[in-house]
């Protein structure tokens, strides 16, 4: 099982590394958004605004990225996947790939965000950990939503419609936890939010593994 997960993951990673179109597209989207915000705000000193804007940009980038990854596959590739791989290893490797993908986008976004709009983060390791857990949750939830949307006809806006309500708990928790990290609060205070994020990630991962085989019969 681990072998097949790794092999699908490597296949996706290699394809992405060679073509780079989707990663570059999302990067352009993100940097463009950050630059527009820079032109409007110039410099953000207010912590809640900084935090909220960062996560809003990331949220929309994440929905775009995951939807694009799933919906770009043609019928032929989908059939190939169905014949060769087992559904659980497919969904696990997809989710893992999206986690790494979204986390790297989050890091690049943070870099440009800090460059243009000022770096307010006081506890950087904590911020990175909460960003990692947040993007992990986002990725697993959005991957399943993209799978549902691609089974239901491949309409990209369906991913957003289905995803946004389910993402609300994750988003609330991660915004609160990263705000604590920006303010530089002690780890004990933030631990509960990180545990919630971890639990949400594992919960959505398990649910995705259980439910994906029903979508697989396409």
């Amino acid at each position, binding site marked *: 099982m681990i072998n097949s997960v790794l092999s699908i993951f490597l296949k996706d990673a290699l394809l992405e590394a060679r073509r780079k179109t989707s990663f570059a597209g999302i990067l352009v989207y993100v940097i463009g958004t950050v630059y527009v915000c820079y032109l409007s705000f110039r410099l953000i000193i207010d912590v809640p605004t900084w935090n909220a804007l960062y996560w809003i940009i990331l949220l929309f980038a994440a929905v775009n990225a995951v939807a694009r990854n799933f919906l770009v596959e043609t019928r032929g590739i989908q059939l190939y996947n169905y014949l060769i791989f087992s559904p659980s290893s497919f969904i696990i490797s997809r989710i893992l790939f999206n986690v790494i993908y979204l986390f790297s986008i989050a890091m690049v976004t943070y870099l440009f965000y800090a460059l243009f709009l000022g770096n307010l983060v006081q506890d950087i390791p904590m911020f990175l950990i909460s960003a990692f857990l947040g993007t992990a949750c986002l990725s697993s939830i959005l991957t399943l939503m993209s799978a549902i949307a691609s089974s239901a006809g491949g*309409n990209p806006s*369906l991913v957003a419609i289905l995803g*946004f*309500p*389910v993402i609300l*708990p994750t988003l609330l928790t991660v915004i609160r936890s990263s705000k604590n990290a920006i303010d530089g609060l002690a780890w004990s205070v933030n631990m509960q939010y990180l545990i*919630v994020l971890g639990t*949400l990630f594992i*919960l959505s991962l398990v649910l995705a593994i259980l*439910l994906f085989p029903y979508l697989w019969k396409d």
Partner: protein
Amino acid sequence: MKLTWWKVSAILLLIYTVIYGFLVEAPRMAILNETIRNLFFHVTMWFSMMILLIVSLIHSIKYLGTFTIRHDEIAVESVRVAMVFGILGLLTGMVWAKYTWGAWWVNDVQLNGAAGTMLVYTAYFLLRGAIEDESKRARISSVYSIFAFTMMVVFIIVLPRMTDSLHPGKGGNPGFSTYDLDSNLRLIFYPAIIGWTLLGVWLLNIKLRINKINNMIIK
């Protein structure tokens, strides 16, 4: 209308709730005063909405297990009735909020959970509208329903306990504390839950029969 035992008891329980809800002696608490009577309507409606959503969840799981279309029909119609109760619950909650907290809507985790639940099931209906084929629609919407319900349950139950909340009974305490509910109120509260749930089941029953007749007409 067939007067079965449960329909009659639904009517009687709800008449009892409405009449005694306004006649019973309300215990005095600061800020709440007489508005505690809303407890019989707002909270009980949410309870019956949750019960109906659990019914929907069970039938979604059963559909994925057996693939009989009947389970999917029950799942979707119970979500529909649950949404009706949810909207009513939100409206009664907003009225209650205006008179106790001063605003129609506040930034409170429970309210976020309520709004999230409404959005999730709106998306459920949108998803169902997007798929033409009956069995595919049933399969995909069951998957979404199970996933969304689990995440929402986590949202509504776990998060309020971790953070402070304006809602009575939260902010550190587990959901609904039975210790600070006056016995008088309890006499009306539990029957009210049963009454609203039975009303919901009645609506569900009627809707399912309407659907069956519609299907027969189409054929």
